[in-house]
């Protein structure tokens, strides 16, 4: 990697973190009113949208843990550790933005002792606590290997299967319950997004985003460290993503049809355009991924994964912000400090991921990318795939 590029990104990182740090100071000295554009009319804003998306990204953690450890599809093992790390960082971002968003952050532990099992938020609180612990344990072998603590490593491995099962169940509950949050606002969330199937959409989109994140990270680590997944694995993930996306989109369409709200797409409103943007960002990679020329090229796969991730960012922001706008009677746009905090959380997550890959055996079995290893794999795989298509 050339030096100037590194310096530039370092500069961006530090500038973002400084702005974020200043915004956090504002948040804790001037309260939510002095640091956000939230109001009585619009009590949940950018940070909630970001939390929804952070957890969506973490979907790769439980998906791959299930694929590798439960379904025993071992060839995806090289992706497992980076995805568990991603999930852990996603949940950490969730917790950080939750602490900033709560009116009284020092009471964040209250749901542990004050129970209301009719509350979706209560379920979410418990899922976050438990699953973050599970993720830390699932990732602990990476640290224990580095430290060479054989005894502890053996103990963690003994409980790994129950941990993975607990992790998959907690994630299923948590991903879908984030969608359930919005079930109680039928009169407030715009009908293009309000659906009784919202929990199901949130769950399936977490699977999609998890797979997209795997492709995304593999490409970036190949740029930064010369480490990436073997091409056949990436190609396989691209095909899985194509099918998952088509199922997700078909379900969204069926849902719109059943609720008879397709007519809303004819209205010239901000909601219509942002809904179409969301759908376009998901339909494009889906269509592209069905083409052999696309799903056999790492760069094209990367491009598709970026589109997919942008599509789900748009979806979460649409649910949290766009869809709640009309009924609120006000027009909410996040203040700079809300953006600064969100971006600095993302920047920190990138920085921590980068450090972890550099200093810990996160990509232990990944192949160094050279023309010699990548190209034969492609040629080897192409006939079989083109036959299948």
């Amino acid at each position, binding site marked *: 990697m050339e030096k100037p590029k590194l310096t530039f990104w370092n500069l961006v990182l530090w500038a973002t973190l400084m702005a974020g740090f200043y915004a956090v100071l504002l948040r804790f*000295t001037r309260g939510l009113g002095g640091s956000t554009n939230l109001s009585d009319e619009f009590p949940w804003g950018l940070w909630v949208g970001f939390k929804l998306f952070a957890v969506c990204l973490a979907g790769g953690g439980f998906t791959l843990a299930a694929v590798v450890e439960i379904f025993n599809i071992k060839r995806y093992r090289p992706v497992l550790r980076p995805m568990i790390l991603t999930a852990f960082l996603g949940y950490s971002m969730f917790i950080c933005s939750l602490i900033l968003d709560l009116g009284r952050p020092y009471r964040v532990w209250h749901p542990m002792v*004050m129970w209301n099992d009719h509350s979706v938020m209560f379920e979410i609180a418990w899922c976050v606590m438990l699953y973050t612990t599970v993720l830390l344990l699932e990732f602990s072998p990476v640290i224990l290997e580095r430290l060479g603590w054989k005894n502890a490593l053996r103990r963690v491995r003994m409980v790994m299967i129950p941990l993975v*099962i607990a992790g998959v169940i907690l994630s299923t509950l948590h991903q879908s319950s984030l969608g359930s949050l919005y*079930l109680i*606002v039928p009169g407030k969330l715009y009908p293009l997004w309000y659906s009784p199937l919202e929990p199901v959409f949130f769950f399936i989109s977490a699977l999609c985003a998890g797979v997209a994140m795997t492709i995304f990270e593999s490409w970036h680590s190949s740029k930064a460290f010369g480490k990436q997944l073997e091409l056949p694995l990436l190609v396989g993930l691209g095909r899985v993503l194509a099918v998952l996306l088509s199922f997700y989109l078909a379900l969204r369409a069926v849902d719109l049809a059943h609720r008879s709200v397709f007519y809303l797409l004819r209205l010239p409103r901000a909601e219509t355009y942002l809904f179409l943007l969301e759908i376009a960002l998901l339909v494009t990679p889906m269509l592209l991924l069905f083409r052999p020329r696309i799903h056999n090229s790492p760069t094209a796969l990367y491009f598709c994964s970026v589109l997919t991730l942008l599509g789900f960012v748009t979806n979460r922001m649409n649910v949290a912000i766009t869809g709640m706008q009309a009924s609120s009677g006000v027009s909410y746009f996040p203040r700079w400090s809300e953006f600064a905090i969100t971006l600095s959380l993302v920047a920190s997550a990138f920085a921590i991921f980068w450090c972890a890959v550099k200093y810990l055996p996160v990509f232990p079995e990944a192949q160094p990318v050279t023309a010699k290893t990548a190209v034969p794999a492609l040629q080897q795989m192409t006939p079989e795939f083109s036959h299948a298509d």
Partner: protein
Amino acid sequence: MSKALLYDATICIGCKQCEAACAEQNKLLYDDSVASEQRQSEHKFTCVLTKGDKFMRRLCMNCQDPACASVCPVGALKKTATGPVTYDADKCMGCRYCMLACPFNVPKYEWNKLAPKVRKCTMCADRVANGKPTACAEICPTGATKFGERDALIAEAQQRIHDNPGNYVNHIYGLNEVGGTSVLLLSSVPFEQFGYSGQMLSEPMPLLTYRALSHVPDVVSLGGVLLGGIWWITNRRADVANAEGKQSSEEE
């Protein structure tokens, strides 16, 4: 028995004494400037909306099965048996889900405080518990806001509409809205004119989330058995392959 308030907009003269009594009861500042505010806020729990010679009160509806209480993760908001929906500021962590969930947009927040609370009318829960009427009903000079048993007030409202059909919209707002509320409204003009939605569900809002939440034990038990079972099968295959010495490089 469950207590309720009946507000009859046709009797109201817009004197706003209920606003002043409410402010005093809840230890809030009340002056001419607050009196002129036509909206509920963290420093004004009830307000008398004025449009020409028509009036309409806004206050917490104290729903029979409140969305706010069902969504509160720490149980800070509670429906009491006597009717009021109370708020325990010592439990609240400030997630503001109650504000999002409330179909009437009642809970307000102290946005500019560092230890903010949710603020709303709690139907004078302390007074009601001691057998007294709410402050707003007690002070009302015309009886437009009346305190009593919910069932008796419903019967009375029906009687008023029956006796004087030309005077009222034929609807008791709060009788069936979101499964019923402890504040009942009568009006001579459509409630929508004062921001009361005419499209409220007639079933309690908490059912919407509870239907999803009730599947949690199913996911845990069935998911656990299914995943454990799949692991047992796939791993057994690996064991057999091991035993037969057939484990080849393709597995890895």
